């Protein structure tokens, strides 16, 4: 009897070893668009990260003999130069650093605020919940642009403040998602068990509520990053973003749009990088959503 039972238990253990996350990852790996997007995004991120070593020119050197020249391989101006004679390839990569940094950092800020806020509102419920969510509704009806502009005006145009400002605006939807998740999680037995076991409220939220609501949050994060990058470019386009000599894709696009007729490469290259990045993030977000959706198994 014992001899027969042993291999049987071994087999069940093997099957039980696959977690929800492994499952989701396997599904994501089968999604071709998402995998290609991940690869492209990795290349863009590496290019931006390693810009000082990859680019043949510094990003703020002025080439007096090559002002507004078209892509020129002999002089290693692969993307041409801008109206001030600076190498556009270097500037596009350095702009990517700023755009990606703002995207990730602002999303992190919004994640921090939104998740904490949503989890607290959802977990306590009742009057606290309705006051907290009412505040979110009020903030929703403020023109956010005005908010960001005021914050920029208020604190000066510093790059750290750009992402704090954008993050401070972007957390609203995150808070709603986490609150919704929390409402359903807090009725589950393991929360009841934790409460009965005398675990403190802060710890329940930190150890049980937040980790269990992470699925939809991750999907939303991958969709927030491109949104933030877009907002930063938009602010830069209006002249409220990063300041010279630093640059971002939005600044480059704004400069390029002004010189579109005489120097189209100034618009085309940064626009391609921006669009490709946004494309990839959106595909990855869609892929993750499909992978984590329990209905589509």
């Amino acid at each position: 009897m014992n001899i027969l039972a042993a291999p049987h238990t071994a087999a069940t253990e093997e099957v039980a070893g696959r977690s929800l996350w492994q499952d989701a990852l396997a599904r994501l790996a089968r999604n071709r668009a998402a995998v290609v997007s991940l690869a492209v995004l990795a290349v863009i991120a590496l290019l931006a990260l390693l810009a000082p070593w990859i680019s043949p020119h510094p990003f703020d050197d002025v080439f007096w003999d090559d002002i507004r020249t078209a892509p020129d391989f002999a002089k290693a101006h692969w993307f041409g130069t801008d109206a001030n004679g600076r190498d556009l390839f270097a500037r596009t990569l350095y702009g990517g650093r700023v755009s990606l940094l703002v995207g990730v950092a602002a999303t992190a800020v919004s994640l921090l605020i939104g998740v904490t806020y949503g989890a607290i509102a959802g977990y306590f419920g009742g009057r606290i919940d309705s006051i907290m969510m009412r505040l979110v509704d009020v903030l929703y009806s403020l023109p956010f642009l005005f908010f960001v502009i005021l914050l920029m005006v208020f604190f000066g145009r510093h790059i750290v403040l750009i992402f704090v400002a954008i993050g401070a605006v972007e957390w609203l939807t995150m808070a709603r998602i986490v609150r919704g998740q929390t409402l359903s999680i807090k009725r589950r037995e393991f929360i009841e068990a934790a409460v009965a076991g005398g675990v403190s409220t802060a710890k329940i939220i930190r150890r049980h509520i937040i980790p269990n609501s992470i699925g939809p949050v991750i999907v939303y994060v991958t969709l927030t990053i491109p949104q933030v990058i877009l907002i930063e470019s938009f602010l830069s386009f209006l002249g409220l973003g990063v300041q010279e000599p630093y640059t971002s894709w939005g600044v480059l696009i704004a400069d390029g749009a002004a010189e579109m007729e005489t120097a189209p490469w100034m618009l085309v290259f940064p626009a391609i990088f921006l669009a490709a990045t946004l494309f990839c993030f959106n595909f990855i977000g869609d892929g993750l959503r499909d992978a984590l959706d329990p209905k589509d198994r």
Partner: protein
Amino acid sequence: MWRYSLGRLAGAIPTLFVVMTVAFFMMRLAPGGPFDRERMLTPEVEANIRKAYNLDEPLVVQYGIYLSKLLRGDLGPSFKYQDYTVVELIGNGFPVSFRIGITAIVLALTVGGAFGTLAALRQNSLIDHAVMAIAMIGITVPNFVMAPLMTLIIGVYLRLLPAGGYGGGNLRNLILPTIALALPQVAYLARLTRASMIEVLRSNYIRTARAKGLPGRLVVGRHALRAALLPVVSYLGPATASIITGSVVIETIFGIPGIGRYFVQGALNRDYTLVMGVVLFYGSLIIVLNLLVDLAYGLLDPKIRYD
């Protein structure tokens, strides 16, 4: 329904009040003032100007003055556009923004809705992939890239339409800005419609409708579309508010005298009253449109009733 609507609007007054208060104090706490110029004014002149606009009073008193005027429908004079009141500026600019915005929304809803439905009905077909790829481009190419490109190609190279300017509301001048404004919305709405349509088409009552032999176009048109439009409608509420109040980018690129640019210019110029005016206007629009969204829900979904 009327009772419900009135209740909702009354309930929105505290919200508006909070919005107003937050905006008022944020604006005033920002450094700089409306009369900071390159050239210094003599102290007497500056004191007189500040007095004329009540800027010499303590902040709380100014808030009280603003509030009491607001209750009488007076948004005050603009600080930057002298000789104009804020009500006049919004009154002149809003019809322009509204005309372009509402056309863009209708365009986006028809085109986006149609493409989204088409893609959902032929899920995973070539049409589906093509529609979704185009929609992705619409979302990822920002309109400050799209608009100059359109101007360059259609306005400058092909000379089919004027490249910019309002032309006194001439229809030919409005085509490009309207399309530029509608494009990202078309993309969003197509994606949204497709997703909810796929969800609805899987539901039991659609299977029942098909089983009793209803022709496909009736199943989709009469049964599926209504339910599939619910998320679209809730997206449309806030989207419409932000689009009919004008887009800074589109209005700047095409030189259109709408109210979208006031949001940015007003804040940069510290035009306190103008910014307050557009913020309140926008806030009220959001509230009204969200109410319309909820009423539309009642029409689309028989399970919801407001009595």
